[in-house]
């Protein structure tokens, strides 16, 4: 049962047999191609592989393996980036990745009242399961420090288990899943309006990027082109979102080194971005403004003027802050050489965004594989550095803020006129599948979905960039001191909500 599936756009999906699946896993393990996503269905597993031009046909390929008995050969057995994804497939679908080295539950904390909620026949949940077994650490003078899931600041919940030798971290183990919302369950059978709202709420700080990825996947499935003005407005919102988040992060990273001054300035700039977004698009985070078929609101002349004023203000006030960062020796002393991610590791895990670019991985879905409109007709650079430390991640953010400012200016200059939304006719009478990538400020958001004959969501998988960044945080903190963890963590700024789904 092999062959290309019809109605899967824009990249092909191929059914493979057991041997083909294992070959693909081996190829990933050998570093040919990057694992983009790995997701399940009750009787089937899928894997999206990104080929960035190492072979003759660069592009994305989706492989599917039917597994009516729920068992499939584990990819995590040979390719570590897949382990948590497979643990999740096991939790949600009751699938059994044969040979998976780590079979502990991941998102399922035994509190759902049901086991494998997305499988064909969900089982009743077991009684509160016994304590989660953390990886054992043996050695003299080692001690454990449990942190979280509830933290002292207003941040999302996640548990970190440090094993330390004095101040030095020997191992960090993360435990996530505390904000599981059941997004993929809620998606099943939802109409497009509701599904778009759900997708936009996967991770609130990347709501525009999720909106774009979801809308483009739907549009790909239906074979529909949104009007040009809508595409440009989407990019405008995406860049504003990137600006707001990067500005906030820049200040917050410095704040974690107790340099509060930067936070005070950056928070003010971020607030200006959010207020301008409110004035232009009617929502501070621009949630639900991107919808399948276009955008839900238009930009008037007043909005354009407000955005230009915003650009001028940030353009004036941001460079002095960069100078301040670059000239504060005590701050650089904290960020330089702290929390290094090795380029090889970033490549192997396919980490996107600042986590990947700080150690040399240049992938940016706005650019890669021809990019998506309107970025293919915009001028911008994807900053890449070598070092992979906290300082490099800060500089990637600084450079991306500058790029985003330039992009917003370009978009405002060339914004085409016309309608901003086309009506959808999702009931096509047949099953359609679509997928899309969109660049959030953290990295590439991946969305894959299948629409049934009535145009409802049969299955939708949303993969946050954090899936491939959280594991790197564990590696980055090793041999650093425990007091530097908040700094490292903030410089990653992975999403809990997007990861826990």
């Amino acid at each position, binding site marked *: 049962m092999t062959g290309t599936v019809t109605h899967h756009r824009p990249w092909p999906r191929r059914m493979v047999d057991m041997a083909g699946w294992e070959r693909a896993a081996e190829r990933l393990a050998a570093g040919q191609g990057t694992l983009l996503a790995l997701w399940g269905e009750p009787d089937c597993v899928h894997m999206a592989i990104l080929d960035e031009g190492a072979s003759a046909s660069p592009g994305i390929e989706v492989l599917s393996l039917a597994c009516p008995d729920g068992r499939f050969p584990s990819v995590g057995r040979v390719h570590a980036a897949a382990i948590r994804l497979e643990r999740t497939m096991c939790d949600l679908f009751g699938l059994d990745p044969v040979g998976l080295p780590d079979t502990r539950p991941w998102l399922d904390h035994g509190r759902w009242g049901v086991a494998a909620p997305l499988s064909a026949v969900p089982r009743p949940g077991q009684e509160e399961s016994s304590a989660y077994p953390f990886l054992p650490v043996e050695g003299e003078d080692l001690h454990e420090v449990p942190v979280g899931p509830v933290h002292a*600041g207003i941040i999302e919940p996640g548990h970190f288990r440090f094993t330390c030798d004095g*101040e030095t971290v020997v191992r960090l183990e993360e435990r996530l899943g505390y904000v599981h919302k059941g997004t993929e369950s809620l998606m099943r059978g939802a109409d497009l309006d509701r599904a778009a709202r759900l997708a936009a709420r996967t991770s609130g700080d990347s709501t525009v990027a999720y909106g774009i990825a979801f809308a483009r996947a739907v549009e790909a499935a239906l074979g529909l082109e949104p009007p040009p003005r809508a595409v440009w407005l989407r990019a405008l919102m995406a860049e504003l979102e990137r600006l707001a988040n990067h500005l906030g992060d820049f200040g917050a990273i410095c704040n974690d080194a107790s340099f509060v*001054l930067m936070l*005070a300035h950056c928070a003010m700039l971020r607030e200006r971005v959010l207020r301008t977004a409110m004035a232009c698009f009617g929502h501070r985070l621009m949630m639900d403004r991107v919808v399948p078929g276009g955008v839900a609101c238009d930009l008037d002349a007043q909005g354009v003027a407000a955005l230009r004023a915003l650009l001028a203000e940030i353009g004036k006030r941001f460079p002095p802050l960069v100078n301040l960062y670059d000239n504060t020796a005590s701050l650089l002393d904290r960020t330089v050489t702290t929390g290094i991610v090795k380029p090889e590791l970033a490549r192997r895990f396919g980490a996107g965004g600042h986590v990947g670019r700080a150690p040399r991985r240049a992938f940016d879905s706005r650019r890669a594989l021809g990019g998506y409109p309107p970025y293919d007709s915009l001028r911008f650079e994807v900053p890449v550095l070598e070092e992979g430390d906290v300082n490099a991640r800060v500089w990637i953010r600084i450079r991306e803020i500058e790029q985003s400012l330039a992009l917003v200016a370009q978009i405002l200059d060339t914004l085409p006129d016309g309608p901003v939304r086309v009506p959808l006719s999702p009931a096509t009478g047949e099953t359609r599948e679509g997928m899309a990538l969109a660049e959030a400020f953290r990295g590439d958001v991946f969305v894959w979905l299948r629409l049934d004959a009535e145009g409802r969501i049969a299955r939708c998988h949303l993969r946050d960039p954090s899936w491939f960044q959280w594991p790197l945080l564990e590696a980055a903190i090793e041999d650093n001191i425990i*007091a530097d963890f908040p700094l490292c963590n903030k410089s990653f700024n992975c999403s809990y909500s997007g990861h826990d789904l």
Partner: protein
Amino acid sequence: MFLVLLVAPLLTGLVRKVKARLQRRRGPPLLQPYRDLRRLLHKEVVLAENASWLFRVAPYLVFTATWVAAALVPTFATGLLFSWTGDLIAIIALLATARFLLGLAALDIGTSFGGIGASRESLIASLAEPATIMIVFTIALIAGSTQLSHIAAFMASEDVGLRVSLAFALVALVIVAIAENARIPVDNPATHLELTMVHEAMVLEYSGRHLAMIEAAAWVKLVFHLSLIACIFFPFGLAQNGGGLVAYAMGAGLWLLKLAAGGVLLAMFETSIAKMRVFRVPGFLGGALMLGLLATLLLFISGSF
């Protein structure tokens, strides 16, 4: 003695206010620390199940020791009530006792943060205390006494002159004061990041009136260090023993001004610098120790330095 207690929250309020203004925030009102204190005193105490008597007693002892130490400093006049006992070495011993008790209490409840805090605090203390001793030696050699009232009186007189060793001692004492009061760059009193805390990590488990005692002790300690620096290095305006009421009032006013100036300087310094890595702190404090040592050595070489 009560004056110190009264002024301490105000000084902390001032430092917080100035820091907030420097960050372009409005900041809490100056009197907020008094309100905090009242609020904490009214709250019930939540005790860890495995807390022993030590954990409950420590806050009072810490507060008392710190308060007595602060009361021994001739703040605005020499020859105050306790001045005859105002020996620098005794003061250092009092503060060290307070720290030791707090460290014990932090270890007592057995949480990992208490342990981290206590270990970091001991690291800092093991360098800050010898540095303080060196500074005391320097000053004692110059003034010919370890008695603070004498030192202040001597420093105010004409005999002092300009001395290199005193400059060294001043810088060293400022460094020690920053470390002892858990200020940036050694520690951050305002952080919420439990992994980076030093002093705060030790007192994480305290609540209610116990926490009030510990907070008050920290505020008093800040007043103590600023007063100490003021009385040793800037003793002008100190009322002499037996001076009239006017002299006392003048001295008190000047003392408050000195404290305020110190508080503002501290806030400005804290705003302009990031926190150090924990392992840089020994280098920072080592600087203080070396300066103290150098100052003492210089005095041995020649009494005129």
